């Protein structure tokens, strides 16, 4: 029995630097061994802005994206540089639902260190790649993981994102292989 290899689309929501998009796409190809393509950009998701919080509601963006068609791509990661939230949380770096088709990565908070300083671009791109891979993991039904260095470990701050490796732990790797089979 053969299975079709999953294909992932990386789509900018608004004006996003080409290097950031490429970093995300190449890490998906390199780490998860999936075919990845950068898709033409969508409009900035102004429909999802919360006037009271002045943040963008990740749930609304994901629902909107899931109603769209993205060719033959099984999973799609949207990239934006707006501050994302889900209603109970102050903010999120990214968002995806277990087994869903669309996930999000926001560069907004990744571009700042916790002390307010700005990291070099390379660090921002690496953080974005990690968050994108983490959210893609959820789209592929991977759960949060206990291992601190695993890509599926939950990160509440940028330091934790930096501490996280670009690899899955042994168990999550096996689980991913099963999911992709």
């Amino acid at each position, binding site marked *: 029995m053969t299975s079709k290899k999953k294909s992932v689309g990386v789509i900018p929501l608004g004006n996003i630097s080409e290097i950031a998009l490429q970093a995300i796409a190449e890490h998906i190809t390199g780490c998860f061994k999936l075919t990845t393509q950068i898709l033409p950009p969508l409009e900035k998701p102004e429909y999802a802005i919360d006037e009271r919080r002045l943040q963008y509601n990740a*749930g609304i963006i994901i629902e909107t994206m899931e109603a769209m068609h993205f060719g033959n791509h099984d999973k799609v990661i949207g990239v934006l540089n707006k501050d994302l*939230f*889900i*209603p*109970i*949380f*102050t*903010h*999120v770096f990214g968002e995806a*639902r*277990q087994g869903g088709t669309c996930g999000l990565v926001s560069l907004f908070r990744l571009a700042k260190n916790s002390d307010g300083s700005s990291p070099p671009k390379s660090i921002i791109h690496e953080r974005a790649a990690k968050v994108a891979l983490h959210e893609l993991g*959820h789209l592929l039904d991977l*759960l*949060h993981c*206990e291992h601190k260095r695993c890509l599926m470990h*939950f990160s*509440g*701050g940028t330091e934790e994102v930096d501490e996280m490796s670009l690899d899955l732990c042994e168990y999550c790797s096996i689980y991913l292989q099963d999911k992709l089979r």
Partner: protein
Amino acid sequence: MDKKMSIMVVDDEAIVRESLFHWFKKYGHVAETASSGFEALEKLEKYPFQLLFVDIKMPGMDGIELLKKVKTEYPDTLVIIITAYGSIESAVKAMRIGATDYLLKPFKPDQLSLVMERISVQEKLVSQYNYLKGRLEKITRFDNIIGQSPPMEAVFSLIPEVAQSDSSILLVGETGTGKELVAKAIHAESRRSHLPFIAINCGAIPESLLESELFGHQKGVFTGATRARKGFLEVVSGGTLFLDEIGEISPKMQINLLRVLEEKKITSIGSREPVEVDFRLVSATRRDLKKEVAEGIFREDFFYRINVIMIEIPPLRKRKEDISLLVEHFLIKYSQETNKTVDHVTSNAMGLLKQYNWPGNVRELENAIERAVVLSKSRTLRIEDFSFIQPSGIQFQESLSLREMEKAYIQKILEEKNWNVTQSAKVLEINRVTLHKMIKRYCLERPEG
């Protein structure tokens, strides 16, 4: 957290329910939502959720009312209150009612992770507590005492009866009969079972030390008293104090303990301040204290104080029908402890074990089985494995047949009973006619003179 939990999010706002629902799904938890307190209670009736996230402001039944109902009907269910900035007072109230924690919304994702981490630690502790409690119950459990002979059945039926009262109990029995096990079983069956059980062997501690152990002492009252120490009579607080070998204590100590039992107060050595104490006393002795009272060796008033209820624990030789059951029990115990499979005893060996008088009672039998299991090279214990047991008057040799052994044993009993056939038949648990036939078959003769 590695343990997956069953969680219900109770909030009238669909968007909050959905956010938390999807968040918990990412951890692999069993997640459910309810839009009102009523719906939550309905779902709780059908499924035992471990953790509830409850919004404080909800129409109909608010979070506080739901929390009260949950804590009354499902006290083990943990509740986390979610509240907005304006309702901190309600959150404090919720904590007083029994909420485990509260979160001010919107919260940082790592705040939720931290709360979940704390719950995980708490759950782990509760689970460890339950495990240890179970272990303790197993150790002190009533059915840990082995026996189905009529004298043991009598003891078993007494234990739950006497456990319910607070009267002092005196356990009388030879050494090794399991007096401490009975004391533990009484404690386990009593309303004090969740409180300490402290056992002290009065015969093993010198009197001066015993006084300080029981009553405690102040700092500096004697050499070595570098700090104040509470005595066991105080430490046992509410539990059961088991004084083994009570017959060994001095008349002075008898007076001191008598006073404690009457006044329920103690004064530690070097102190003038009496402290109230509450404990149930179970004592044990292998001596005939009634005789010692009559002889004036033991104080009569103290004897009656500790002997409100007396339970006699029969020696093993009077309940030989329990031996095979005990052997089976100890084989399992020591096979597990030594990691060896020794699960059989030949009928010859069992015959020897039943024939022996066991002056050290169950403890001696246990030691014998332990030794045999440790040294055994096969899964079956044979008569040779018990060569260290020397039944009085009969020396067993490897070549001894069952017939020869039976002959020797019958002869021994007849001699012990001065050739009184009725009494000998009783000991051998056969009828007189059978014994006469055996005497004839084995050509046994009464010695001259």
